[in-house]
């Protein structure tokens, strides 16, 4: 998450400002390390594997102290839990995609709601939420924006944003895709004369 530093926040701000100067769209971009802690998965993984280890030790042909079995069970459980918590690809492998999708969606909708994105006059608010652990970018447009841009373009945006996870520097790739999305917004959600930004410059979302 080091790449999502103050420079990133500032760059994100400028990018959004540029997009909004050319379109009536009101973009809120948000990034979070994950949309759920999934500790139960690590615990489950640690339980299963340590159980297998204990089973193995219990039925082994060699002699082993009962204290060792007890201890190894505990130590392996703790270690496996910590390892699973630390190795994202392993943890991700153990979580169903559907569950991750649902969590990102719940989190995204919470940001949309609590960030007041729905309060724009023309309903042109759009949330672009990047959840790093789940490797997902969720785009949530308000109804004005949703109907102003053809569905095909939303699909394109979704697909394009999803490619940021193929790059090493996700932060830079995200900014780049955001800049590219500006062209679509400028094309379909034209800027209004004599209007203002309806969302705070320094949005704070208390979740």
């Amino acid at each position: 998450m080091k790449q999502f530093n103050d420079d990133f926040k500032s760059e994100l701000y400028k990018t959004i400002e540029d997009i909004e100067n050319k379109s009536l769209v009101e973009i809120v971009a948000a990034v979070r390390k994950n949309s759920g802690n999934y500790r139960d998965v690590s615990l489950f993984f640690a339980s299963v594997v340590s159980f297998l280890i204990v089973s193995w030790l219990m039925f082994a042909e060699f002699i082993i102290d009962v204290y060792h079995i007890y201890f190894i069970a505990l130590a392996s459980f703790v270690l496996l839990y910590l390892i699973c918590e630390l190795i994202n690809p392993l943890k991700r492998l153990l979580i169903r995609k559907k569950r991750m999708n649902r969590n990102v969606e719940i989190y995204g909708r919470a940001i949309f709601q609590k960030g007041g994105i729905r309060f724009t006059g023309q309903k042109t608010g759009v949330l672009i939420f990047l959840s790093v652990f789940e490797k997902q970018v969720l785009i949530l447009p308000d109804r004005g924006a949703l109907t102003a841009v053809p569905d095909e373009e939303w699909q394109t945006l979704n697909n394009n944003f999803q490619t940021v996870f193929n790059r090493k520097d996700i932060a830079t790739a995200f900014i780049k895709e955001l800049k590219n999305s500006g062209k679509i917004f400028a094309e379909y959600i034209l800027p209004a004369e004599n209007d203002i930004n309806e969302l705070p410059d320094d949005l704070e979302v208390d979740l």
Partner: protein
Amino acid sequence: MIKKNHKIFVLISALLVLLFILMPVFNDIIQARPGGGHSYSGGGGSYSGGGSYSGNGGGDGIGFLIYLLFRELPPQISIPLIILIFVLAYYVQKRNNNGRNLILPSPGVQARTVRHNNIDDDIRRLKQIDVNFSKVLFLDFVASLFNKYYTWFGTENFKNLSPFLTSEEINYSENFGRNVRITEIVIGNMRIGEINFLNDTIGIAVDIEANYTKEIRGRKTRYILTERWYFNRKNGILSPEPEKMQKLACPNCGAPANFTDSGVCKSCGTEINKGEMQWFVKKHIILTQSVFRTEGLAHYEPERGTELPVIYRKNMMLYAEEFARRHNLDWNEWTEYFSENVAAKYLLKIYDAWSRNNLKTVRNLLSDRMYENMMFWLNTYKQAGLINKLENVKIRAVRFAGIDLDRFYESVTVRIYVSALDYVIDINGNLKGGSAGRLRNFSEYWTFIRRTGVEKDDYDLASCPNCGAPADNIGQAGICEYCGTKITTGNFSWVLAVITQDEVYSG
């Protein structure tokens, strides 16, 4: 993808089971580890003193685990294992903590400086079109309108705002304001966020931080909120004179706002069409709103923003030269004098009054809005049974960040670096927040205003600048009770108009 994950999961499980089944094959190899460990258990017997542990039947789980580790395993394994568990636990904890925050776009210093400069350029352009435009007076007008909007909301008087509001707003007040009364309105800060130049219209967006009490059917709730008000006015007209900007008045005759539904002034009979003589609110939006609570008053966050560079006004030296020419003075000498006799002196006096919970002694140094805002916070502390103390205040540096000149007002913004003991105690003197022993370093941007043409810089802090009587009888309205003169509008010398924290200052 789901299928793929499941396949891998099943594969891992199968491998582990296979390992378990094939275990006897590798018996010789396997025996080397547990058997080795077992042989050390005898050595572990040297920890038998620990055996009394189970006899004690107590202790926490982690302690017991560590004890077991040492007892059951040789030190070459137990010590690295404990270290490994702690290191892993530390990283897991750290990662979980880092992941809690939502990362949102934030204007860094660079973006804020650019925005600040853009607004400055726009104000300069506006002044070329409207030589009477004064940022100070415009914000005074905004504050008056904001105040009256909420004071009169839902009442008959609301129609007096008809020249300044859209008809939708008037209807909204009539329809939804019947059971609502809004009182104790305090405006904290105002900032011009955007200026739009169109063919026939000029638009200015202002962000207003405020708080007020809303009473619905006798039940009161205090809210803290930020609103964005978007003002429009016809292009090419001049702003009214200060007297018509500082209070809500007919832009034609200057009489206090008293209009018919159609916007006809009852004093002069002039129909005031929206935006033809004065600014009107085209749109207003609530950006943030929450119930005001006093729980966090004694809570201190680590100081942020002190290390940020000073945000200077673009072309500040051009304004400085103009200022020096106007007053026939040497800019460098004057800044030294101002730093010492206005910025530093005012700050020490105001902080002292704040600590004593008595702003009466510095009323002459504060603009009306500043005074109301500070009084609000003092009263809030008081109601919560708390006192905020600022002691051992030392001015570390004063940096000039901006100067603004217009036809009616001059304003100077300085960034003041301070170190002080900043803490909160309750009425019994118990420390509730901050530190009474450790100095806190911080900085704030202070903006002072003064009427154009006034030469005097510093107040005689002890007397009324108009009649010379002791400054001990200045009412809340900033009027000297001896001579009846309002002395807090910058008509006599500099008054403090705005304090902005360094981490949010944007000009």
